[in-house]
């Protein structure tokens, strides 16, 4: 659901390149310690930090429940501090995580009105514009943003160019990010490694993608999305057993159905259909739940599932259309095209039998 490329590394946290980084296991323990230490603290600034940390933990462990908790906390903060710009920025972040981009931008606008002298919202605004596919506006906004340092600027631009698929520019800023990193936390760099990996995957440069995902995992072994994407790459590279080894722990630790969906696909391709159907049912149930609760956020990944192992092209098309309304990214358009291709045989068959596409799908096309 929440692709990392939609959340700029700099928006999540900040830290060194050539210097050693804190071991990934320590970093995860201390992320937990930060969250535990801030739970129950009432102050607005602390609540905003807690929301950011919950989003980061959700990202690392692939835990949607963390995003949901962050969103609840953000709503509660607005209720408690109606005139606090930081509370609106925090809620904008949680709304962005759930792809409620228009509402997120509304929150940032409101924060700007309450506290016009603060320029902190620009970075968040740029990340949201990027996620919506409004890349040129995102670029202008990133450049205008009052960045906290060279690393933050370079990391944001690496993420933007990676999302645009401009590999040379993305790599240039990625290297600049490594060069300018001065912290010891591994999180900002592992997130960047992942973004580059996703970029190479989209270009079907699977060996480069694998290198990036492996780098991300060396920094933070618990990083679920990197493990999941590496599994996908390994599957494509003809090593399904390695992929399965990575995916089984993820379905136990994460509440994101992506990993069950991947297991279903790979096991199906291996001819282990009984096992595949079990994981498929699990993923289907969870996608139904999630698209019911957070439709915008899960439309893209759920559409992929229904177009693949879920085998419900109509549902895939419905969600792909919804997704393209939320975000006009090249990936969203590709997904819609894929859905239309998938539905074509069904539609042709339906026309032959005198049936029609569902009204919703037909009108939205």
């Amino acid at each position, binding site marked *: 659901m929440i692709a990392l490329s939609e959340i700029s590394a700099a928006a999540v946290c900040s830290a060194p390149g050539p210097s050693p980084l804190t071991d990934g296991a320590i970093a995860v323990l201390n992320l937990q310690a930060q969250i535990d230490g801030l739970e129950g*603290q009432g*102050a607005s600034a602390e609540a905003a930090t807690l929301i950011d940390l919950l989003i980061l933990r959700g990202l690392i462990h692939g835990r949607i429940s963390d995003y949901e908790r962050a969103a609840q906390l953000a709503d509660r903060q607005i209720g408690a501090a109606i005139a606090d710009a930081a509370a609106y920025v925090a809620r904008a972040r949680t709304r962005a995580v759930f792809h409620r981009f228009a509402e997120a931008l509304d929150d940032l606008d409101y924060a700007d009105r309450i506290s016009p002298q603060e320029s902190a919202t620009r970075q968040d605004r740029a990340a949201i514009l990027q996620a919506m596919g409004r890349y040129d506006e995102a670029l202008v906004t990133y450049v205008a943003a009052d960045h906290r340092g060279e690393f933050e600027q370079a990391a944001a631009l690496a993420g933007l160019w990676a999302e645009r698929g401009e590999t040379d520019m993305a790599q240039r800023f990625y290297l600049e990010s490594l060069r300018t990193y001065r912290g010891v936390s591994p999180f900002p760099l592992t997130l960047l490694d992942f973004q580059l990996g996703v970029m190479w995957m989209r270009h079907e440069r699977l060996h480069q993608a694998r290198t990036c995902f492996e780098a991300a995992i060396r920094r933070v072994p618990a990083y679920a999305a990197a493990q999941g994407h590496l599994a996908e790459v390994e599957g494509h590279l003809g090593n399904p057993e390695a992929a399965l080894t990575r995916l089984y722990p993820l379905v136990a630790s994460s509440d994101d159905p992506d990993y069950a969906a991947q297991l279903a696909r790979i096991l199906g391709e291996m001819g282990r259909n009984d096992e595949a159907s079990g994981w498929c049912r699990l993923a289907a149930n969870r996608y139904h739940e999630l698209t019911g609760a957070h439709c915008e956020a899960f439309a893209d990944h759920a559409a992929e599932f229904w177009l693949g192992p879920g085998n419900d092209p109509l549902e895939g098309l419905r969600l792909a259309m919804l997704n393209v309304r939320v975000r006009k990214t090249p990936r969203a358009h590709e997904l819609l095209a894929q859905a239309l291709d998938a539905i074509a045989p069904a539609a042709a068959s339906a026309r032959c039998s005198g049936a029609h596409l569902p009204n919703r799908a037909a009108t939205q096309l």
Partner: protein
Amino acid sequence: MSDHFSGPRALADPIADISDVFAFPAPDSPEHLVLVMDVFGKAGPSAVFSDAVIYRFRIRPVEIAATGSGAAFAPSKSEVTFDCTFDVPKSPAGAARPVQHGRCLTPSGRTVSFRADDENGGGEDGIQIFAGQRSEPFYLDVRMIEKTVATGKLSFKPKGSDTLYGTNILAIVIKLEWRKMLKGGPLFAVVCETLAAGQRPVRIERVGRPEIKNVSMSWKMFDQVNKDLEIRDLYNSEDAFDLKPDYFDAYRVRMNANLAFYDGLDGKIDWPFDQQGNHPLTKLLLADFLVVDASRPFAETSYFEIERSMLEGRTHATPGGRWLNQDIMDFVLTLYVNGGNGPPVNDGIDAPIAWSSKTFPYLAPPNPAKAAAA
């Protein structure tokens, strides 16, 4: 926690964020000096030290160079350091906390090994070291400090709300036989630093005195020169014993402006600026190291007593430095607001959840996980 969250970088890397530094003659052993560095304010139960950070104690012999209105210290060029580093912890089955081992490189080149959370610490001849999670010894009401600054009026309540109540920190405690382990003295200047490890370690943070970066330097709005400058990361990157002349004026102007704000809170001026336009405390506070006289017996409330004696042209009576239980916020506020010429300023918080003890490792054991929320 007097220095916790002292700048954007510290926020991003709490494990390298020094919250407090203490230096005091050992209450249980006069021939020993105790140095304490706290990091990771509001640390949850799983918090451990980073394996990529050097936790450094820097100690220099220091002389009193001048007294009266131009009071100043002259730290020696010679320095000793104690560098503490940590391994990646292991998590044995059933253990409440991961087991982490550390080591301290002493000035003589010896390495002292220890296991985190072991109250006996590690040690050998002349030195004992503890590292681990402990109860936060600092106490203050942050909201009322913010309100005071926002309104320009002392806003503390008779019974305040301790922002840090029930929270924990990670502490490193070094108890050393100072005549054996240090050179010179008995007056020493102490600074603690965190550095990103590597072939050329890079300073992440440094702390000497309490409440310099937050209470004294963080407010931008009184500074007529650098109204928009978040000055603390720059200040953190500096060598406490050798501030760059290029930036010194930025720190000086910020400190002057903020100290003048505090001085005006009671409606009278207790600290008239000198002929160069500086607050009388600015120069001393920007000498941002704890000065402790290791030859003096332990005292409960001794922070800044050496500096006060210098300003007043008398000999100090206490070891100075800083003891764990001193009510630093009341002291700093009273110092800044009326210089001791008026009633003490009380922030309404007079104790932490648990007092530190007078035996090694001094800081109280960690609080249960939910003590803060409760």
